[in-house]
């Protein structure tokens, strides 16, 4: 169902405060939503990252106002070079997240609104940016909602994508004239070579392809998350191409965590796709899951869960 604004959400909208925040890359434009004064205070400001800030179908607008009715404050903002923010517009490489933007926003929230505890949330590039803030601000982050982000360098992702491809796929590709035409470009030969070598190694008995490496940036930021006391939800669709890279993290990183840390970091892998948010029912499901998970960071909910356990 499409979002229907409730009277309580409309009230939160009336309280919203647009802000300009200085960052090394230019002024960032954001909107702060104060917590509802009559709701029990969560003491957590949820920072919703996306570019532009409303996200597809105004998801983060709805999320900010709904969370505010539950006692959270919220902030949504445009990263530099996007939406209403200043700065150069460039290709957004998930392995070069806009950490400085987010750190500037968290510091501004502290200085201007007295916010001390944060939850950060994002999809894909924005999730990697959310995670990158742990390097500077781990002590103040209590929750991370991390949705469908790639965890490898871009060239490695191409190889990871080939893990989904079989010989049938190759035969199909060979029958397409457009693929042959594109082979005039050297990078297409390189791509074909990478994919083919992965497939051959997988096909030969005993010739399993080596584990593809996670990006050093992700490893560093994940380590900072592990050292923190923050909770996290990693949410992927099994058919997301980004999930191939997360599978490596599931095999390499998660088994090494001690029990207490592992309990803090939840993983959910759903059938189908989540990345892209281009299918309405799935968009609503993943949005609802994200907001519900964030709402559980409220001290009263957390206390009730602890009591039940």
């Amino acid at each position, binding site marked *: 169902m499409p979002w229907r604004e409730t009277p309580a959400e409309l009230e939160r909208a009336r309280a919203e405060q647009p802000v*300009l925040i200085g960052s090394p890359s230019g002024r960032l434009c954001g909107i702060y939503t104060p917590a509802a004064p009559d709701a029990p205070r969560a003491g957590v400001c949820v920072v919703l990252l996306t570019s*532009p800030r*409303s996200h597809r179908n105004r998801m983060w607008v709805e999320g900010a106002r709904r969370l505010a009715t539950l006692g959270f404050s919220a902030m949504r903002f445009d990263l530099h070079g996007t939406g*209403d923010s200043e700065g150069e517009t460039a290709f*957004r490489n998930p392995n070069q997240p806009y950490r400085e933007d987010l750190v500037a926003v968290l510091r501004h929230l502290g200085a201007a609104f007295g916010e001390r505890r944060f939850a950060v949330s994002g999809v894909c590039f924005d999730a990697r940016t959310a995670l990158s803030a742990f390097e500077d601000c781990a002590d103040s982050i209590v929750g991370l909602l991390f949705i469908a982000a790639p965890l490898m360098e871009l060239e490695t992702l191409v190889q990871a994508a080939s893990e989904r491809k079989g010989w049938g796929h190759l035969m199909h590709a060979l029958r397409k004239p457009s693929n042959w035409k594109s082979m005039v470009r050297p990078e297409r030969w390189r791509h074909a070579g990478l994919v083919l070598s992965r497939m051959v190694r997988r096909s030969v008995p005993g010739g399993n392809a080596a584990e593809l490496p996670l990006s050093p940036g992700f490893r560093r930021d994940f380590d900072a998350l592990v050292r923190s006391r923050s909770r996290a939800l990693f949410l992927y669709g099994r058919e997301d191409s980004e999930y191939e890279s997360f599978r490596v993290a599931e095999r390499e990183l998660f088994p090494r965590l001690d029990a207490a840390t592992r309990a803090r970091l939840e993983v959910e892998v759903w059938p189908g796709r989540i990345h892209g948010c281009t299918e*309405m029912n799935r968009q609503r499901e993943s949005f609802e899951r994200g907001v519900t998970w964030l709402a559980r960071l409220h001290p009263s909910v957390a206390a009730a869960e602890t009591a039940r356990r």
Partner: protein
Amino acid sequence: MSHAPPAIPSFFTAADRPLFCVYHAPGPDRPDAPIVLHAHSTGFEQLTSCLAEAGFARAAADAGFPALRYHARGHGDSTGDFADVTLDSLVEDALAAAAEARARSGRSRIVWLGVRFGALVAAEAIRRGAPADALALWEPAIDPDRFYRAMLRGVLFFHVSEGRRPAFTVDQMMEAVERDGRVDVLGYYLHRALVRSTRGVNLETLLGGWSGPTLIAQVQARPRLTEAHAALARSLEARGASVSTAVIREEPGWQISSNPAWVGTDLARRTVEWLDALA
């Protein structure tokens, strides 16, 4: 290097609801320059064009033209339900934004910028008596029915690009809008309320009384004006309007976000040049 003060985000009230806007104060002192008022497109197109609109507003402010960009109800950071958006509600918000633009800038003259579906909104606002000195149209939606159908064709192309066979035709999806009240357009709904509100509406008809300076900026890969844009230009010229055209050979991909996002530098430059020539 920008000469204009920083753009200021804020809310104003229309129909007793907060609407979001960004005001771009002018850099150089040009007191006779009109304010540029943006009427955005609808659905996801509001996002795909927002960076180009912001870039243009900054460039216009640098050239001495104040600008106001706003989000209509049910869009972006404003309030209201997208499901209830109609041409009438969009025009009501545009008229409120026009009053806000004049109050903020102290300017009495307005140049309207209609982006895609926003062209219909700007034209109808002008038809209802909004002050208008000139009109810029970016890749205008001339016939709303064609606009919706092109949007739905985009869904089919997207499915094909992902190796999926489309489950419905465009006609079937248009029937679904009428029958079910909405259809999924890549993570946005196309709602019956909007479709019904534009029945029998056409940009050329809405501009029937307009004879002011007009810019038609086509944003497509093709090298010449489409027949639809050329016909619109001829019809305006026949009524005495001074019409300029610009062919911007870019394909923003209105329904899909790109990385990097579309910035429309050439479009902004051409539009500022047209503004400069007017003043």
